[in-house]
């Protein structure tokens, strides 16, 4: 008698599941067009600016565009697209593509521990699109922007989230590239995601990846991909100048470092130590904290009593926990020097008074006085009330805007594997909210960094460090030869 009750619900569930399966089948149907038509049209000269390129596996999105020459294909499409009810984006995209549109896919960490940073990133993307006539679809992070145009072409924004793991990032990106037909990808947020996406996107030369905030050096430093661009710094560049400042200005001779145990903090610690040790400083202890640790008390306890300062490199929750606990356990007896994201504006308000006076280096300061920065800050607050500039919204903004500017310059021409567009993108040189940017041969930005101090809850400039490059001013070959930073590299 217990099994009797839920019959109705069961039936409903059955219907739901069936619908799902039908939806899946339709996805397949839609694909059928792509696979059967793509070979037929591939040899033809590209009829539309955004036509697919022969070497790449045909992207689903291109199917409708391809279909134009053959009436049969077009009618097929007309018949099938409505059926693909499970995938509204793809349908819209297909329709828009016929009249000429460009799809931008934005990926950031919308789930998991870095979800807040994902929100910030998307603010930056949307802000750039708003400058091109777009309007917000809604207030949620996953709500897109519609109506933006560049060179007369509509810009579609597709938003995907990951949870900061490479596998999920690749799948999300694959969805944007192959399902939604994204031409340009903005993102991702974290370092290892960036490396994974570099490998993926290399196989799609016509798609362009403009990095968000992934700060892995090897995104551009070693084995770069021709269609990957970074308009910001990497983890080491963001930390540039701190080691020297600590040695020369602050007079520290021995330091300890506390950092999360993965590649991004390795880069930060590596950059600090490279400078600091070159000047004659020594590192007494390198403490690596496993990711996912919340209670830093036992790690604070390992800091030797006799060091001059402690450099810490962390992000988000970890930074908050560390600073708070360091304060509680030591009363800040030994001064702290911070990594760039540990005192990023995105966590400053949560750090509160404890962050006052912390020295760090980084790309974003609040008092640079640049007109572009003030305009950006004002606009950000206007569109997303209460938001202030931080590394995530600024970088995603710069990435998106650079792409849009390059698109404008080439008139939205993405033919020939986006060759013209990528060339224009590589030539982008403009005054961003955080200073001028130009790209080097690896499509890696050379940008200004700032030595900064937390003062009154904002980052104030100590010194502007102009034109920091990917090798921190060292000889390129030597710098690359010393290998990726790791737990014990550099070995000073």
């Amino acid at each position, binding site marked *: 008698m*217990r099994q009797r009750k839920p019959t109705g619900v069961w039936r409903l569930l059955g219907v739901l599941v069936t619908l799902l399966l039908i939806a899946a089948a339709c996805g397949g149907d839609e694909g059928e067009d792509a696979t059967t038509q793509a070979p037929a049209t591939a040899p033809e000269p590209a009829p539309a600016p955004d036509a697919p390129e022969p070497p790449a596996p045909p992207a689903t999105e291109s199917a409708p565009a391809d279909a134009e020459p053959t009436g049969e294909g077009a009618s097929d499409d007309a018949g099938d697209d409505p059926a693909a009810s499970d995938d509204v984006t793809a349908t819209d995209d297909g329709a828009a593509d016929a009249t000429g549109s460009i799809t931008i896919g934005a990926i950031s960490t919308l789930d998991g521990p870095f*979800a807040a940073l994902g929100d910030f990133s998307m603010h930056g993307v949307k802000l750039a699109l708003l400058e091109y006539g777009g309007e917000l679809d809604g207030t949620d992070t996953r709500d897109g922007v519609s109506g933006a145009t560049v060179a007369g072409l509509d810009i579609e924004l597709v938003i995907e989230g990951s949870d900061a793991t490479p596998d999920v990032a690749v799948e999300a990106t694959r969805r944007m590239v192959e399902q939604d037909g994204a031409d340009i990808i903005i993102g991702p947020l974290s370092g290892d995601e960036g490396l994974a996406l570099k490998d993926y996107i290399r196989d799609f030369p016509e798609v362009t990846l403009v990095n968000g905030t992934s700060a892995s050096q090897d995104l551009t430093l070693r084995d770069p991909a021709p269609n990957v661009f970074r308009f910001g710094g990497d983890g080491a560049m963001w930390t540039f100048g701190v080691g020297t400042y600590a040695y020369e200005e602050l007079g520290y001779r021995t330091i300890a470092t506390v950092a999360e145990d993965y590649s991004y903090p390795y880069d930060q610690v590596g950059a600090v130590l490279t400078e600091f040790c070159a000047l004659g400083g020594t590192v007494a202890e390198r403490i690596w904290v496993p990711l996912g640790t919340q209670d830093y008390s036992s790690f604070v306890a390992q800091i030797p009593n006799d060091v001059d300062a402690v450099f810490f490199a962390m992000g*988000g929750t970890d930074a908050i926990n560390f600073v708070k606990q360091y304060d509680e356990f*030591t009363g800040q007896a030994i001064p702290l020097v911070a990594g760039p994201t540990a005192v990023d504006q995105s966590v400053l308000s*949560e750090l509160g008074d404890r962050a006052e006076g912390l020295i760090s280096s980084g790309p974003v300061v609040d008092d640079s006085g640049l007109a572009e920065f003030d305009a950006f800050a004002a606009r950000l607050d206007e569109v997303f009330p209460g938001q202030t500039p931080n590394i995530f919204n600024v970088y995603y903004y710069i990435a998106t805007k650079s792409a849009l500017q390059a698109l404008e310059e080439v008139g939205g021409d993405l033919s020939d594997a986006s060759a013209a567009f990528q060339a224009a993108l590589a030539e982008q040189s403009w005054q961003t909210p955080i200073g001028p940017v130009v790209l080097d041969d690896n499509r890696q930005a050379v940008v200004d960094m700032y030595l900064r101090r937390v003062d009154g809850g904002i980052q104030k400039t100590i010194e502007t460090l102009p034109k920091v490059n990917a090798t921190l001013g060292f000889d390129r070959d030597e710098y690359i030869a010393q290998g990726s930073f790791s737990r014990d590299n550099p070995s000073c």
Partner: protein
Amino acid sequence: MAPDRRTEAAAGGAQVALRHLAGRAAAAAVGRNQRRAAQLAISGLLIYYVTAKSIQISDRSLLVLLNGLTAAALYFLMASGFTLLFGLVRVTNLAHGGVYLLGGYVALSVQRATGNWLAAAGLGFLFSGGIGILLYVLLRRLRGEGLRETMVTLGAAIVMADQALAHWGGVPSDLDPPAFLQGSLPLPASPLLYPKFRIAVIGLAILAGLALWLLLYRTRLGMVIRAGVDDRDMVSMAGIRVELVFCAVFVLAGGLAGMAGVAGGTYLSLAQGEDNRVLLASLIVVIAGGLGSLRGAGAAAVLVGLVEAFAQTHHAILSVLITFGTLIAVLALRPHGLFGRPVDARL
């Protein structure tokens, strides 16, 4: 001077403990109880190792001990409710971490609105208790089907985490401790301090433990709960509406998790992913201690907390491996945990 004396005392204590253990291990070996001998030998080595290490940086050993106890306190708050719930209702509540997070977040909202930590803690406790009722209702019709109940709580955990993200966003945040628990106390013979609130958390866990003990061993409800842990069908057959007791335990477990969320949200912080982390820790504690055993939860909380603190201090990089390795070893040697009896944990 002082450290030396403490070192000596510690060494002496360890020696006594070791001699005792060695004796028992030998006795067990003579008595052909090889497993027991192996267990004793392993614990002996562990004690020896820990002592040796704590002498090594002796001005930090008190701190490490306190850290271990603080962690243990948080784990105990989580684990006690979890173990009661499992013991009585046979539900492996994988949403326990979600309750922790939501309890903490509700308290955070209340504190932001009122500025009062105690009010925040109280409401966090009540809210989590309310979630306990919701879970109870959700699981009612699956009673007795352990695996399906577990799966439903897993689904609930996924929903809770996402709802927490939707309502409180991903920005990590923390509660401010009440004024009288702000600041730190100096640690003797060490340049380091110890935050008052952490000590209060240890106190809170001890209080909660005492209250639970009184409830379980000094009231009729407690008798019914214990009887239900042993055999809930027989409690039903005694005419007692065991469902009401179940509901009460759901509320209690939820409330305890919420309290842990408030405490953890104050001395650590609240963020996405915390639910899984805390859930994992409390699962470890509950299982290592033995399902349904309050005493076991207490002992295992202390064990896990201390092992974690020592491992983090002395082998930072491999600390998590040591913690989980210990758990695996405990469970492989004692499949029902330290204090567990072979209860029917069939799913």
